[in-house]
C-alpha cells in the first residue's frame, strides 16, 4: 500500500472571511483531532476570491480543501470535512 497523500487545506484570511468567522478557524490546533491534523497541510491564503463572486451560493468564511472551495465554514463543519477527507 502506497503512502497516503496529505490533504491540502487553505484557510482564507482575507478581511471578509476573517471578520465573519475566519479568525475562529485559525485556532485549528485547538479544535481539530490530532490524527486529522497530522494528515493535513494547513496554510493561510490572502484571498480565495469567494467573497467577490456575485453568484456564490454560500458566504464567507471560505476554506479550500483538496482544491474544492467550501463556504459558510465553522469549526464543526471543518472538523467533519477534514475527517472525511483524511479518512477517505
Amino acid at each position: 500500500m502506497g503512502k497516503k497523500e496529505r490533504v491540502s487545506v487553505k484557510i482564507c484570511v482575507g478581511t471578509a472571511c476573517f471578520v465573519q468567522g475566519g479568525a475562529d478557524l485559525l485556532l485549528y490546533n485547538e479544535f481539530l483531532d490530532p490524527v486529522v491534523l497530522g494528515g493535513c497541510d494547513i496554510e493561510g491564503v490572502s484571498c480565495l476570491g469567494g467573497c467577490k463572486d456575485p453568484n456564490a451560493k454560500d458566504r464567507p468564511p471560505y476554506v479550500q480543501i483538496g482544491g474544492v472551495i467550501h463556504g459558510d465554514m465553522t469549526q464543526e463543519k471543518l472538523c467533519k470535512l477534514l475527517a472525511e477527507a483524511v479518512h477517505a
Partner: protein
Amino acid sequence: MNDIFIDVDYAQIYKHGQKIGGDVFLLSRNPENDQIVCTLSDGLGSGVKANVLASLTARMAHKLSFSPMDLTHSARIIMNTLPVCKERKISYATFTIADIRHEKGEEVRVNLVEYDNPSALVFRGVNSYLWQPERIDLEREGAFKQEVLGHSQLKLSIGSRLVIFSDGATQAGMGKSLPLGWRLEGVRSFAQAQIEANPDISSHDLAQAIVCRAHSLDRLSAKDDITCMVVYVRKPRRTLVVTGPPFTVEHDQDLVEKIRLFEGKKIVSGGTTAQIVSRLLAKPLKVDMSCWSPQVPPCSIMEGIDLVTEGMLTLSKVAIALEQKKPVRSLPNDAVRKFIQVMQESDQVHFIVGTKINEAHQDPNIPVEIGIRRTLIGRLRKALEDNYLKETSQEYI
C-alpha cells in the same frame, strides 16, 4: 519632502531621591522656516527650587532665541530675572541654546550659545570636531562672578552629531569610581566609542547610553541630575505604504513599478493588493500563521517587501493604536505591532492609496469599522504627524 532629517532627542535621570529635575530640556520646531530650537538649563541646587530656576531660564532662553534680539541682551534679561536662592544669596542657572536651521542643500547651521554648562561636543561621523567658541563677557551690574557666554556658529553636514549635556554627566562618579568625575574627555571618548560601534545610532539611543553610563559611574545613585541631548543630522528613513488595488487594472503595473523603485522600507497592506504585487513581481506570497491575534488577520511574507498585511482591519487597528499612542510592547505579536514598529523607525511615510472599491466590503454583515480607505489613511497621517512628528505624504492611484 526634505532630503535631510534632524533627529533630536534627550535622556534624563534625576538626582537620587528626587521626584523632580533641576535640569530642564525644551525643544520646539518651527516648520515654516525649518528651525529647531533646543534649550538645556541646569538650575542651582536640586529638586523643586532648581526646577523653577531651570524652567524659567530655559523658557526665557527659548522664547528669546526666536526673537531677533541680540543674544547678550537676552542673557542679561534672563540673569536679571532669576530669583535669588535663600541659602546661597545668589541667582544662578546655566544654559545652552542650540538654534538649528536647515537652509538649502545638505547642511545645517547651528547657532550655539553656552553659559557655564560643560561645552558641547560635535562629531563628524566618528571623528570629534574641536573648535574655539567666541567669548562674550556680559559685564552685568550686580553680578556675583564674571559671566562669560560662549558663542559658536557651527555647520553640521549629514552624519554629524551635536551632543549637549549637563554637569551631572561630566561630574558622574566623582569621589566614587573616578576621583575627578567622568569629565568632558570621558564623555567624548564614550560617545565616540558608541558611534564607532554603531555608526547609525539614533539620538535617542546615544543620549540614553551616555546618561546610563554616567548613572552607573555614580553607582546607580546619581549625585546630580544627569541630562544629555543629541542632535543627529542624517538622511531620512523612508517607508512606503501601499494599500488598495488601483482604480483600473491598467495601473497595476505602474503601482508595482513605484514599489520596485522606492528606496526604503515597503509595506503592502491589503490581500488583493498583495496578490497583484506578488503576481507582477513574480514573488510567491506565503501567509505567516505564527503572527496574528483574534482582531487582526495574519501577516504574509514576500521577498522584497518588508511587511505584507491584511488591509482595512489592520489599518484601522493601527490608526487606533497610533491615535492613543499605545506603547509597542503592550500590543500582541500581530500585524499591527509590526506595522507600528516600522512606522516608529521611519521619518517619512509615503502612502499610495488604491481607489478601487472592494465588492466584498459592501456586504452589510461586515463590521462598520471597515470604513472608507481614504478616511482611514487620513487618520493614520494625522496621528503620525501629531503624535509622532513624522512627515507624511499621499497619492491616489
